[in-house]
């Protein structure tokens, strides 16, 4: 009897649930065919090519060349995240407290740069940073330096280019958090005897943590897998993981090794995401209201 009721209920409920599900099927199918399947295919190739087994992973973890790429990827992502945070904090604070007109103007500038083509923006930095670029020419014209500074095809170039691209992804969650803070809280802290530095470190900063968490997560994970900017502004000595994968696929046609590297990148990214999610919950995990 009980079983029958349950089955009937399930039978009644299932179509209703499906009713809300069906309209999403074209999108899901598209994602399955063009995204999930190729990714799975690549990951499968990492354990199937050239023959079944884990030899690709042994090679990736065993070689110092690949290890250097991993380390470099983390170093670059960390530097970019820290520099972005330091630049984004004052911008976000300004956006949150400035008069509406100024804030919306700055907001428009940030969004506009975000909507501009990534490649265009990266080439713009190439023009600015190269040996005969505006920056080097100006500095030399003023007599501040005798020979052009090496600003491109190295870590400096990558950091400058990527920080610029990542800035909005840090500013937006930060300013949303900062704007939700009540200025009266800081007045109270000040009247309690806290000087400016104490108000900042003991009250403002702890309350901004959810925004910092969200921004840092987003920028760090995006930086880990970044391709275009490091490829154009970076040098051969500090290759990043995404570049390595591209090279393995395009030049060496080693799909198995590329799949192994891709899986490692995926696992690390999801791992960071999980840690962040655990500490800060939904809001910090990239959900910005």
């Amino acid at each position, binding site marked *: 009897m009980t079983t029958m009721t349950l089955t009937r209920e399930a039978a009644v409920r299932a179509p209703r649930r499906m009713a809300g599900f069906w309209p999403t099927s074209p999108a899901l199918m598209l994602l399955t065919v063009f995204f999930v399947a190729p990714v799975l295919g690549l990951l499968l190739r990492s354990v199937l090519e050239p023959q079944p087994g884990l030899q690709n992973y042994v090679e990736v973890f065993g070689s110092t060349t690949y290890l250097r790429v991993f380390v470099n990827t983390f170093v670059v992502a960390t530097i970019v995240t820290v520099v972005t945070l330091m630049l984004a904090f004052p911008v976000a604070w300004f956006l949150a407290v400035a008069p509406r007109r100024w804030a919306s103007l700055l907001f428009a500038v940030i969004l506009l740069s975000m909507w501009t083509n990534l490649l265009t923006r990266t080439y713009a930095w190439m023009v600015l940073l190269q040996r005969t670029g505006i920056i080097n020419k100006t500095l030399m014209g003023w007599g501040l330096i005798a020979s052009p500074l090496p600003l491109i095809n190295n870590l400096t170039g990558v950091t400058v280019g990527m920080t610029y691209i990542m800035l909005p992804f840090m500013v937006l969650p930060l300013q949303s958090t900062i704007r939700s803070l009540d200025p009266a809280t800081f*007045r109270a*802290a000040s*009247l*309690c*005897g806290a000087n400016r530095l104490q108000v900042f470190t003991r009250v403002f900063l702890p309350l901004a943590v959810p925004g910092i968490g969200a921004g840092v997560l987003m920028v760090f994970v995006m930086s880990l897998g970044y391709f275009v900017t490091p490829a154009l502004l970076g040098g051969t000595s500090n290759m990043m993981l995404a570049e390595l994968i591209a090279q393995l696929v395009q030049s060496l046609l080693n799909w198995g090794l590329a799949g192994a590297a891709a899986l490692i990148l995926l696992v690390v990214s999801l791992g960071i995401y999980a840690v962040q999610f655990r500490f800060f919950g939904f809001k910090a995990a990239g959900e910005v209201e």
Partner: protein
Amino acid sequence: MTRPFLSIRNIEKTYGRVVAVQDVSLDIAQGEFVTFLGPSGSGKSTTLYAIAGFLQPTRGDVLLGGKSLLSVPSNKRNIGMVFQRYTLFPHLSVADNVAFPLRVRRQPKAEIDAKVAAMLKLVRLETMADRMPAQMSGGQQQRVALARALAYDPPILLMDEPLSALDKKLREEIQIEIKRIHNETGVTILYVTHDQEEALRLSDRIALFNAGRIEQLGTGHDLYEKPASRFVAGFIGNSNFLHGKLSRSDRSITLPDGTAIQGVALDKVGPGQGDVSIMIRPDHFRLHNGEAAPRLVGTVTDTTYLGEYTQLTVLTAWGGALSVRLPPDDRASPVEKGQSIALTCAPLDVRAF
């Protein structure tokens, strides 16, 4: 008052052409409870913020114990404050919130712990030391804010409409707490509110603000019984305002229907003569019982029995509506709607502006 403890001298604050506070002066004695009462935008909060150091007055000075406070930054003023909104630090527990002002002053841990315990006892929240602010009711949060503001023994405690977000019952409960804490600690309190009942209940003296100025400064009794202006009379308590003619030589006032009130107190009717605005409190009316007193006739258009008194609306012969409160002993002969009624009042209770 020999030397005032806190002295506010000719404070003025302008924003462009808008004058928020104009020539406000006030001396406050140590241990006094003074309330800034007034409608919103009357300058009471602006004055308080000038004392707290959140804004710099355009002119004037604030002296504490004879020394000017204006050049001292907020965090060095050593003033306690409870805000209208909940300003507890949401990432700190109740005990850590109360300890905050002591920690930024780098006091020894043992002293801080003892002081936090004493403060939580003062506001009767000993059992809630480990709670987070979000887990507490609005009333509890404001009590913690009070404990935090008093933890560093400030000479002055500022309170900016601290109870306006609470419901009436809770508000009255915390008013009693504030009164008790004022008695126990002896701290000088400056309290801002727009609620006259709250002001009357709590304060030693009330400064009634209007349009950026202090309209009248005095005890609650002074403000109610001897209002200095029509604004004060209208703001504190309920009032009836009637048109009338004042004759100083006869010491009489004539109402529009010809009723003459003889023997008014000249010191209570202001400097005017001729057409004046007359004020009679609703509870100063009595039923006329045939004695030789002014007799004002009208028709009852509404009655509400409220236990302690009966509230009447009386339409006068000239078409004005009077608000009348009759005490319980006049209730014996119940007044009915539509009935004609004769009222009187003591000439000494009549005021004119």
